[in-house]
């Protein structure tokens, strides 16, 4: 990413919040929602530092507002800036030959060096134990098996729960996200205690 010399000031941030909503709490909620969308956008597009790029997009938008630009829809404008950043990112990769970003990093060591991957599994088991038996069975069955087996299992589960496939899919996804968060927090706590 090209380094922007301009950095977000409190005044510019206040201007951004003012343009989102007159009420500060609502404005803060909208800001977080926009930032979340931007992070997802950069993540979907395979960016190596999605959070950094999302902040850069927000900063550029705040700068424009600070300069007196009239922006009717801040969210759409930020997404427009994000797409410009994606173009910049792609061009920079080609121009400067930064192919290193495209080289996959070994994911066998996803956590900090020195941490034990077994802790992740232990934490996951612990978090699964905290779920209700129904939810535990759902997530273990929903994400179990290979391609063909999975389709069959999921069909059986929709019949068992008597809900549409899309509803069950969203329920399983939310459980999965909850479980991942719990396991990550557990690993982090483990690392803190070890220190």
């Amino acid at each position, binding site marked *: 990413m*090209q380094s922007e010399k301009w950095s977000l000031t409190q005044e510019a941030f206040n201007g951004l919040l003012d343009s989102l909503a007159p009420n500060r709490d609502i404005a803060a909620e909208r800001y977080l929602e926009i930032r979340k*969308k931007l*992070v*997802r*956008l950069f*993540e*979907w*597009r*395979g*960016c*190596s*530092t*999605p959070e950094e790029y999302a902040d850069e997009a927000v900063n550029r938008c705040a700068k424009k507002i600070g300069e*007196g*630009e*009239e*922006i009717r829809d801040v*969210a*759409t404008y930020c*997404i*427009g800036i994000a*797409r*410009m950043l994606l*173009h910049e990112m792609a061009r920079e990769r080609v*121009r400067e*030959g930064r*192919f290193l970003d*495209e*080289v*996959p*990093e*070994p*994911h*066998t060591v*996803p*956590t900090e060096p020195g941490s034990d*991957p077994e802790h*992740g*599994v232990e934490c*996951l*088991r612990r978090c*699964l134990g905290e779920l209700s038996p129904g939810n535990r069975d759902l*997530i*273990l*069955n929903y*994400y*179990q*098996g*290979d*391609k063909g087996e999975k389709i069959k299992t999921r069909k059986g589960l929709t019949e068992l729960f008597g809900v549409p496939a*899309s509803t069950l*899919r*969203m329920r*399983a*996804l939310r459980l*999965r996200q909850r*479980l*991942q968060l719990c*396991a*990550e927090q557990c690993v982090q706590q483990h690392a803190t205690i070890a220190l």
Partner: protein
Amino acid sequence: MSGSQSDMRSEPIDEMLLIKYLLGDLSEEEQVRVEDRAFADADYRGALEAVEADLIDAYVRGELLPAERHGFERRFLISPQRRKKVAFARDLARVAAEAKAAESASSIRLSAWQALLRLVRGWNPVLQFAAGLAVLIFVVGSSLLAIQGVAMRSRVAVLETQRHDLQARTEGLQRQLGEEQARAGSLAAQLQQQQKAGGAPVPLVASLVLLPGLSRAESRREQLVLNPSAQIAHIEIQLEPGDNYPRFRAELRTLRGEEVLIRGSLPRRRATAGYSVSFDVPASALAEGQYELALKGLLNDQSLQDVGYYYFSVQKQ
């Protein structure tokens, strides 16, 4: 806007399209369409996240085709957030497999136990005791073997994934080395050519002049050609004699309506014939495609009046 959003919502969800999007196999226009719908429709965004979870699971189970695996590694293994998702998926697959194995082992043990009980009920007490002991030894032994088998399969799966990763990384580094060598060779050749040609500098600024009465008609498209070295696009709009405003405002957007930039308070300058308004745009802000430039006159009371709409396309060399 709300009409088009509700149209989007009623469209069925094409999961193959979402997989292609996540693997980076769609054109820029198609990617933008998927993202716009995902931002406007929470159900669609949920479907995209669910497809992403299934794709990650398929990767850790080694179910992806080589091309898909390659696309996945380029897009998923470079951000910490996604690496965490991959690590979690691996743990979940392992725990789910263990749970399934434990469940089937327990059901096998239960049915074998019931059959033996029925058989043994007809025997005398000594035989019943001996058979009970034998069954107990068999059950304990087979349970231990089943647990060891599950652990062994998990280790094999982990080792297999590690081997794939190392292979992918080696291939990636080799590819990078080849690309760097090719790039170095091409730069050297370019330098030589430039030296032979007398070192003519490559232009860093690309210019576009929009004439009154021509570009304002949508049927007529000017073209801005950006070569790879262009850093800035200089856009000049020639004014008609009646365009007599103290200041101007230029709004540049794509034909899809996405704002690219807005320049306010632009002065009018004397040109060879009449007056013109000009401004610079970073070349990086302009992707290939069609653009609309709205020029507005800014009056002293800060009100705006439309001067004209200009259309042009950007082409990259």
